[in-house]
């Protein structure tokens, strides 16, 4: 029995084992991201400073909230030991709160729990979903390319690409340069999955580790990029996918298609000279076609850009603008596209995302398909039987 007055010993827990409870816990973790703000109390308008962010110990990452934090000394990468932190559940995930009762102090890398690599479970790509973390995967790098993005004030390079194993493919977004190259097989740990614009994405950063492996069982990049088409019903069931291939007939065209004007800064469509983000702008003319592709099992939208639209339509942007000068009615251009593409058979590859209206493919390629009528007649004749 514990003596009256002296607190019960608080167990130190790994973040992976964190469960909402009434009793406070002790934990050690590294600040992965944080944000400072102030909360105004309604009753007396008093302001209370607040620091919130993500804490990781290598086994898991959790959100934390720190009331009345120190003014300085907290940075990305700072390791903290918190004694008497409260654990609550928010949307079924544990979150920790540091209150006036919590003692928070600095700690070193040695205080973080030692995570034996062998302890981390292997997962398949298909089984990953946000906000998973604390797993290992072995995947093929299907493609990867650096891209410069602006994060707040900062310009950073992110390596974006596609990873795949036999079970599926997932987008990669790496904030750290692991020197990845297409075709490599790698074992990855210390990444996490998040949802970005409706797609699952594996995020890697400086805490992640990447090891080259043999990967003889992994699919070759060409197997992913040149997969035979699947039914649109399957793509709808899967909610899209990173490397979707479908084949169908164009049965319609959705607005806006044809000649559109785009904001010179963000490439969003400009309506009545106004960009949704940048206000009044001088729109740049562009061609697009939002094709409804249907294979009899389902239908999806293919957002064809200028090059594909020009090729399918047989009319260039310049020609379209000339036509518009002769007959100033944009809808005539849209009708002309529909009359050219309706009923055409296309094979489309690209990234499929899903929203309330179904799946939309941002195409890597759109190829018209010529049907071999002799072969089709022979095949169907054999199935129908009974001679001709």
């Amino acid at each position: 029995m514990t003596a009256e007055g002296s607190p019960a010993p608080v167990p130190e827990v790994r973040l992976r084992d964190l469960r909402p409870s009434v009793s406070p816990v002790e934990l050690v973790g590294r600040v992965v991201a944080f944000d400072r703000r102030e909360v105004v109390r309604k009753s007396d308008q008093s302001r209370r400073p607040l620091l919130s962010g993500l804490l990781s110990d290598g086994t898991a990452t959790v959100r934390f909230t720190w009331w009345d934090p120190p003014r300085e000394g907290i940075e990305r990468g700072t390791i903290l030991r918190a004694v008497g932190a409260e654990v609550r559940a928010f949307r079924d995930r544990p979150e920790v709160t540091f209150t006036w009762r919590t003692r928070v102090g600095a700690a070193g890398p040695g205080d973080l729990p030692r995570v034996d690599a062998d302890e981390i479970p292997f997962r398949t790509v298909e089984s990953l979903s946000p906000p998973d973390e604390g797993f290992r995967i072995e995947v093929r790098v299907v493609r990867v390319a650096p891209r410069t993005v602006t994060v707040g004030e900062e310009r950073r390079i992110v390596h974006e690409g596609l990873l795949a194993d036999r079970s599926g493919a997932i987008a990669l977004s790496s904030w750290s340069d692991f020197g990845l190259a297409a075709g490599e097989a790698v074992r990855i740990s210390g990444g996490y999955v998040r949802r970005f614009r409706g797609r699952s994405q594996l995020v890697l950063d400086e805490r992640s580790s990447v090891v080259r492996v043999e990967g003889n069982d992994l699919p070759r990049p060409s197997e992913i990029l040149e997969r035979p088409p699947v039914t649109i019903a399957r793509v709808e069931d899967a909610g899209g996918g990173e490397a979707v291939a479908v084949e169908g007939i164009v049965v319609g065209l959705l607005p806006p298609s044809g000649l559109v004007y785009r904001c010179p800064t963000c490439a969003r469509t400009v309506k009545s000279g106004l960009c949704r983000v940048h206000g009044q702008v001088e729109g740049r003319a562009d061609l697009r076609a939002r094709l409804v592709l249907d294979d009899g099992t389902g239908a999806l939208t293919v957002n064809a850009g200028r090059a594909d639209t020009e090729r399918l339509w047989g009319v260039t942007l310049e020609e379209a603008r000339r036509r518009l000068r002769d007959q100033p009615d944009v809808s005539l251009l849209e009708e002309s596209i529909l009359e050219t593409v309706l009923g055409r058979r296309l094979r489309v590859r690209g990234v499929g995302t899903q929203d309330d209206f179904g799946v939309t493919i941002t195409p890597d390629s759109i190829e018209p398909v010529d049907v071999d009528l002799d072969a089709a007649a022979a095949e169907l004749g054999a199935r129908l039987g009974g001679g001709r």
Partner: protein
Amino acid sequence: MALREPAWRVTARELESSLEEEKGEGDRAASYLLSPFAARMNRVLVTGTLSPAEPIGRDETQPFWRSRLTDPTGAVAVTAGSFQPRAMAQLRSSPAARPAIVVGKAHLYRGRDGVGYVSVRAEGVRFVGETDERAVLADIVRQTLDRLDLLDRIAREPDRSDESFGAEGSPRSWVRAARESLRRYPNVDREAFRRDLRPALRRVAGDSGPPAPPATPPPSVTVTRLPVAAPARPAPTAAERAEESTFLDHLDEIAEASADGYADLKELLARVASQGLAGDRAEAALSRLEEEGVVEEPIVGKLRRA
């Protein structure tokens, strides 16, 4: 989430055989035309020779055009109104019968005599060359055979789960349609329907020329809705002739006064009822007149002299 309805690949023969509907519930719910061959159609894709369109209705503010699409297995009406301006413009644009691909919504109109008429309300029409027509027809025949095969498998093993059929590559929506077809059309001769597909196959293989109208193939579907036709009716009595004449007089009067040149059926029935020609007797007079070809009802609820 309401996904876009896929366009079922069907032949005119299959559309002609479709007599069952599934009305959606709730607001703006889709309704479906069920075929005996596992198509649960809201939208369809058909191809064949499209005849020049003719206007139906004389109301110029509500134009409505109808054309006939003939494929090697049968024929189906293709319509377009002011709600499908593009398709209507396309239908009107063609002075002669030409091969075309049509995407549209399947409609079933059931007349008072219980006979169903299927039409396709066009959303998209494109006149094409023979090669494109044959390519789409190949797709139609292939998917029709896929559905027939699925029907056979489900009929053989009705207790197997949807998932196990799905694992064989059949979309869930197809399995659902197939089960519904088997339930609603329990006695369908699928072999006869397969035979009906042969002319379509010959067309895919390149038999040229406009597809000949089918030599009234034996019906692959037998759905008995009414007792077998009654023996020839005795000649109408003088009293019946008088009723018909009253009926026609009022029809002419209403049609004369109406904007579109048609007599509204409800209005007509109300008017003759006030003249002592009510209920069954009015209906009987109307059906006699229709049978004799004196009166027709080209639009539901709208009558005119034939």
